[in-house]
C-alpha cells in the first residue's frame, strides 16, 4: 500500500496567547523549546506540539478529539491554510510544507459545505477542472459524471444556493473529487446534521471513498461517525498528542489511555485501587474485586461498557451490595448511580432492560473492564 500522506512532527498552532492546561496545570506552550516559542507568529501559541501519522491511498483516518482539541487546526495546517511552527507534510513522497494550498494536492472541505454562490452546481463541480485549464465542454462532462456517481446528477443545472443540506454536502464532495486530490481532508462534515441528513452524508462519504483513491482524513468528535466511515481511528489526547492510528473496533475495545476512553464516551469509569501481593494483582472498587494481572499498585480507574456489566438483585453474589440512588434511561443503555454502605458513590452503565429502580439494593458483576493507572 502506498503512503500518500505522511505528516512528521507537525507543530500545529492555535490563535491566541499561551493557555494554562486544565489537565495538569502546566503551560502547554512549554512542551516546545524556547527557540520555537520565540519564532511563533504573533498572536499564536502551540496547540499540538508534535503530530506524526501516515495515511495510505484509499484509506480513511478518523481523528477524534474533544471540542477545541485542535482537530480543525491540524487539518488546516496540513492543507496549508494556516502556518505550521515546525515539522513537515509529505504528499506521495513530495514535501509540500512550504507550498501554497493550491500546489499541495490536498483538498480541504469545511464543516459547512462552501459552494460558490454565483455558480451553478455544474460550474461549481467543474471549478477544479476549469482552473487547470480544461475546456469547458470536457470539464462539464466530467463534472456531470461525478455528480451522477454521487447520485446528484439531476441537480447539475440548479443554482448552488438552492440546495438542501445533504445535497450541498454531496455537491461539495463531487467538486472535491473532481480535483482528483491525493489527500482529502473532511472537517467534521457530519456534525450539526439531523439524523436523516447525517445518514445521507455518511453514505455519500462512503461513496466518495469508493470513487476516489485519495488518502482521507475525517475529523470528528463522534465515535459513530468514525466507525461508519473510517478504516483507522486516532484520538487527540489532553496534551495535544495523537494516539497511534488503529482499526476503529480495536480502539473501541482497547483504548490506549484513560483520556481516549473518556473521549469515546461509551465507558463507565469506576474508580478504585490496584493492589499486588503474593497471590497476584487485583483491582478493588466499591462494587467488588477484579483480577488484574498487569496492574501497577495505586489509584486506578476501570472502564466498562454497558454490555460488560450485569446488575443482580442484592444478595445473590459474593460482592458488596449497592443501593440505586438514581437511574437515567438512555437510547442504548441505562445509567445507574450506586452508593455503598459507607456513602461512596459510583456511576455504572448497564444494558437496556436492566430492571433496577431507585432504592433497590443491587450487586454488580463486571464481566470485562480496562484498567488505567492514575499517577
Amino acid at each position, binding site marked *: 500500500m502506498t503512503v500518500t500522506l505522511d505528516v512528521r512532527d507537525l507543530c500545529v498552532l492555535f490563535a491566541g496567547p499561551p493557555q494554562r492546561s486544565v489537565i495538569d496545570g502546566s503551560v502547554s506552550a512549554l512542551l516546545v523549546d524556547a527557540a520555537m516559542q520565540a519564532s511563533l507568529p504573533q498572536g499564536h501559541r502551540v496547540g499540538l506540539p508534535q503530530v506524526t501519522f501516515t495515511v495510505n491511498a484509499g484509506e480513511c483516518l478518523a481523528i477524534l478529539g474533544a471540542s477545541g482539541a485542535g482537530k480543525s487546526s491540524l487539518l488546516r495546517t496540513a492543507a496549508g491554510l494556516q502556518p505550521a511552527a515546525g515539522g513537515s507534510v509529505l504528499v506521495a513522497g513530495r514535501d509540500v510544507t512550504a507550498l501554497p494550498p493550491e500546489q499541495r494536492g490536498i*483538498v480541504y472541505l*469545511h464543516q459547512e459545505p462552501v459552494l460558490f454562490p*454565483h455558480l451553478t452546481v455544474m460550474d461549481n463541480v467543474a*471549478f477544479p477542472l476549469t482552473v487547470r485549464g480544461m475546456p469547458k465542454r470536457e470539464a462539464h462532462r466530467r463534472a456531470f459524471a461525478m455528480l451522477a456517481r454521487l447520485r446528484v446528477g439531476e441537480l447539475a443545472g440548479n443554482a448552488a444556493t438552492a440546495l438542501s443540506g445533504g445535497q450541498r454536502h454531496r455537491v461539495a464532495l463531487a467538486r472535491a473529487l473532481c480535483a482528483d486530490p491525493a489527500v482529502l481532508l473532511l472537517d467534521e462534515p457530519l456534525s450539526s446534521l439531523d439524523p436523516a441528513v447525517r445518514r445521507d452524508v455518511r453514505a455519500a462519504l462512503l461513496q466518495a471513498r469508493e470513487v476516489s483513491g485519495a488518502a482521507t482524513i475525517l475529523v470528528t468528535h463522534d465515535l459513530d461517525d468514525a466507525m461508519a466511515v473510517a478504516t483507522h481511528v486516532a484520538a487527540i489526547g489532553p496534551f495535544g498528542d495523537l494516539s497511534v492510528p488503529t482499526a476503529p473496533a480495536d480502539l473501541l475495545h482497547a483504548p490506549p489511555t484513560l483520556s481516549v476512553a473518556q473521549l469515546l464516551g461509551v465507558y463507565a469509569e469506576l474508580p478504585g485501587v490496584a493492589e499486588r501481593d503474593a497471590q497476584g494483582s487485583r483491582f478493588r472498587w466499591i462494587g467488588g474485586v477484579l483480577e488484574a494481572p498487569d496492574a501497577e499498585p495505586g489509584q486506578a480507574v476501570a472502564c466498562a461498557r454497558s454490555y460488560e456489566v450485569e446488575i443482580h438483585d442484592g444478595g445473590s453474589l459474593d460482592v458488596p451490595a449497592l443501593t440505586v440512588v438514581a437511574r437515567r434511561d438512555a437510547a442504548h443503555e441505562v445509567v445507574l448511580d450506586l452508593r455503598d454502605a459507607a456513602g461512596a458513590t459510583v456511576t455504572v452503565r448497564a444494558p437496556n432492560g436492566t430492571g433496577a429502580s431507585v432504592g433497590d439494593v443491587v450487586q454488580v458483576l463486571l464481566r470485562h473492564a480496562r484498567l488505567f493507572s492514575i499517577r
Partner: protein
Amino acid sequence: MTARTSSLRLLSFIALLLFATAPLLMLMVTSLSRGWFYPALLPAAADGSAWRELFTDAGRRDALVNSIALGIGTALVATTLALPLGRAAALSTRAVRRSVALLAFTAVALPPVALGIGLQLTVLRLGLGGTLFGVFLAHLVPTLGYLTLVFLGVFTRWDGRLEESAATLGANGVTRWRLVLLPLLRRPIADALALGFLVSWAQVALTLLVGGGAVRTLPLDVLAMLQAGQDQRAAAGALALAIPALLVLGASRVAARSTSAVVA
C-alpha cells in the same frame, strides 16, 4: 387593515411623492419656460434654449465635461484604492481596522470647507492649485473615505472560506480573484463606482477652494447662474446635475433585482 389606516397610508404616500418630486417638477418647468415671474401662476412662454445652451455653449460644455471626467476618474481611482485598502483592513487586527475606519470617517465627516482649506493649502504647495488634477486629488480624499468604509463593511462580512475552498481546489491567487472574488464583488464594485462618481459630481466647496475658479464644473456653473439671476439656465443645469443621481438610483434597483435572481 381598517379603511382609516388605508386612507392614512395613501395620504402619506401622496405627501411623500409630492415632497420628493415637487422640486424636480419645478426645476423642469422653470428650465423650459421664459418670463415666469411672481405673481404669475404660469410661465409666459415655453423655451428650450437653456437646455440647448447646456450642450452647445463652449463654457457650459467644458464645465459638463470637467464634471464627468472628474466623476469618472475619481470613481475609478478611489474604487481601485479603496477595495484593497478595505480588504486589508478587514483582514487585519481589530486595532488596525478601527484606525482605518476612523481615518476614512474623518475624511467623510469633516466639513467640506474645513477639508477644502486644508486641501487647498496642500495642493498649492504641490503647485497644483487651480488645475483639474489638483481638483481631482481634492475630490479623491472624501471619495476614498466613503469607499474605504464601503469595502471595509463588505470585507468584514466576507466569507473567507470561499477563497480557502478555491485555493485547495487548485486556484492560485490570480484565478481566485478572477473566478471567485471579482464575480462576487461585482455588485459592491458597481455601487462603489456609482457612489464615487456622485460624491465627486456634487462637490462644490472643494472644487471652488482648490480650483480657485479656474476649474469650471457643472455645480459651480449652476451656482454662478443662480447668483446672476439666470433662473432658467440654473434650473436646466440643476436638473442635469440630478440626472446621474437618478440614473444611479434606478440602475442600483435593477442590479439589486438581478442579483437577487442569481442568488435566490
